[in-house]
């Protein structure tokens, strides 16, 4: 008995040990690490419809996921070479700080303290959001200022709790906070009537309302109580890698502005036209790729993989999808929105 227990234990212990021993360490820049590994570790949410959610085949889909795929296509030439690491509000920052993930594309609000105190670099904004409120239509509430005394479900782990506390304090109202860890459970509580109001980013509200049995039974109140610029972020201190993520995002935005789409990008790259910015973007003119340590056609790969910013928006969260978000602030600056990319030059 004793001997067999001992033997089994040693055997089992060594399996773990070899797993560690075989995982060779490597150092250097994030870019080198990613290229050596052959895949990008990208942190996403544990599931927000339209933004990042595994479909029934287990393939991650969504607006944030597209950013990861675009970076993987640009860096590795393969949009499927991404390992998606689901993170919660609690784990996302340590996952990034400890090097478990290379970038975080997860509905994360760009704030002063996160950028400075927590030592991260936000590389841009891929979605301008704001915190909103959803209430059942039959509650007869038309403005968030009428919510004095209401029970509010909050999805924790973001800046949501703080914005909510500020909003109610400034307006001199009281409320009963019900903090809930996951969006699915918050929705479940809201639908059961265990809270009168559900608050989170308006994009998520719209996304979740779209999945209700009776979407018209709930209304999203007009107040937007916070600015929530959501964007991908990387570790502080590796500017080279930050540039790659930043300019991949910018490439998608510029592509929309210039009319480069998933459909015509190959054609445009094969036969350079006379628009120098398109040519520089697609690597047929100049050496922008080499400047950030990538192939000349990195942006072309990224666009070919997921489409331009507008296409990503439309296929995942746009008005034709179940989520049904309007472009609003997230339209190109030429259409009155805030989406604006610095020039490729």
């Amino acid at each position: 008995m004793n001997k067999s227990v001992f033997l089994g234990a040693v055997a089992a212990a060594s399996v773990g040990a070899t797993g560690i021993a075989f995982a060779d360490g490597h150092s250097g820049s994030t870019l080198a690490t990613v290229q050596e590994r052959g895949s990008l570790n990208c942190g996403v949410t544990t599931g927000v419809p339209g933004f990042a959610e595994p479909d029934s085949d287990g393939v991650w889909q969504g607006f944030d996921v597209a950013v990861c795929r675009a970076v993987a296509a640009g860096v590795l030439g393969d949009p499927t070479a991404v390992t998606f690491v689901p993170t919660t509000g609690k784990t996302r920052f340590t996952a990034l700080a400890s090097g478990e993930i290379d970038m975080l594309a997860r509905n994360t609000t760009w704030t002063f303290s996160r950028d400075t105190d927590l030592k991260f670099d936000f590389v841009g904004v891929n979605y301008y959001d704001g915190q909103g409120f959803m209430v059942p239509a039959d509650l007869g509430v038309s403005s968030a200022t009428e919510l004095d005394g209401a029970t509010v479900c909050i999805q924790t782990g973001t800046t949501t709790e703080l914005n909510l506390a500020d909003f109610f304090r400034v307006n001199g109202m009281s409320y009963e906070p019900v903090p809930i860890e996951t969006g699915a459970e918050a929705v479940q509580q809201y639908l059961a009537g265990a809270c009168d109001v559900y608050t989170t980013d308006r994009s998520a509200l719209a996304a979740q309302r779209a999945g209700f049995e009776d979407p018209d039974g709930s209304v999203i109140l007009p107040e937007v109580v916070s600015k929530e610029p959501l964007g991908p972020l990387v570790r502080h201190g590796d500017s080279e890698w930050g540039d790659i993520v930043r300019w991949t995002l910018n490439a998608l935005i510029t592509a929309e502005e210039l009319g480069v789409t998933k459909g015509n990008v190959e054609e445009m790259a094969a036969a350079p036209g006379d628009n120098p910015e398109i040519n520089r973007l697609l690597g047929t003119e100049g050496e922008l790729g080499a400047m950030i340590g990538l192939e000349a056609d990195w942006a072309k790969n990224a666009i070919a993989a997921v489409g331009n910013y507008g296409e990503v928006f439309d296929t995942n969260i746009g008005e034709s999808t179940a989520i049904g978000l309007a472009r609003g602030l997230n339209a190109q600056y030429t259409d009155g929105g805030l989406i604006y990319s610095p020039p490729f030059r």
Partner: protein
Amino acid sequence: MTTMTDPPQVEGFRIGQLINDTRYRSYTFQFIALVCLILGFSWLAYNASQNDQLQSNGFSYEFLYNPAGYDINQQPIPYTSQDTHLRATIIGAINTIIVAFLACVTATIFGVIAGVLRLSNNWIISKLMSVYVEMFRNIPVLIWIIIIFTVAANTFPPISEFRLPRDGSDPERGLLFGMFAATNQGVFVPRLVFADLGWIVAATFLASIAGVFGWKAHAKRKLYGEGKEVPVLGPSLAILLVPTIVVYFILGMPVSLENPEMGRFRFEGGFLLRPSLIALWFALSIYTGAFIAENVRAGILAISKGQSEAAAALGLRPGRIMSLVVLPQALRVIIPPLISQYLNITKNTSLAIAVGYMDLTGTLGGITLNQTGRALECILLLMLFYLTFSLAISAIMNVYNNSVKLKER
């Protein structure tokens, strides 16, 4: 050895003795163990020192004095979002203690009832209790907490049925006795409101409780000392109620009940038992109750049948046999495992995070950690708190255990 007349080898210390000589071997092993330990810890420390992020953030608890910025629903002590993280942490700790205490009490009640009934002669009852015990023992407590939370949200009447319709008609449901309302936003109960002199009434009541115990001790002395049976129930009730009621009316009714009243969205005033508290409390009690039931059953079975037969021969009724003869003896067997069940309850309260109950894990290990990003500091402090709770509970319970232990002389 005896034939040789070697002098004792005082100077003859060889390296080999470090391994082979039992006198020195223990030092060698301890030295090796110490070196391994130091190497292990310095390896961890070295890795930490290699992490730029950790280095630049430093290790400091100063964030505890910054405003927390978030609200907490269940506030045993006053708190606003402008108070510090430290105060939020303390509230979390108190909330942990509240739910742990409530769950320990009810789990013991459930456990004792189920354990006794499982040994009942009544086939249906004992089988029903077996089903209860096996059901709850073999399914993770996290699943039970979530299920009960979901049940509370979906089966309690929605609060909208209590609201006053805007057309002025009566609501679908009213308060039970004008005091209680069980809704899916929690159970609303009345609250005691103490006016200026209210504390005198409360003090009188507490003194009366002490008086009841005093009377019981007196009755026991009489019974054992002089063989006189002194009535207990009537005088106890009188001692408990009369002085309090007299004081209450003399002082002009300084204590009143504040009933919940319907506001715009929910009941204002009164006291609210939140669904998260109910789910956690109930799930922990019923889950741990199943384990305690097994301990109680084992404790009772450990008492030899002769004891209950002897008690029966003396003419005691079955209920009294259980409460006067079997349970007091079984207690000695039951208490040590009961301590570890109480510890389990306290540790399992940390699952509050699954239902959003604002305990220590919800404040310090939850929102504070999320907002400040100070993972290392928050988690260390969190562990320290739980360690303190655990050690305190085992200390208290061990004192109690020693007091009921069979004194062997």
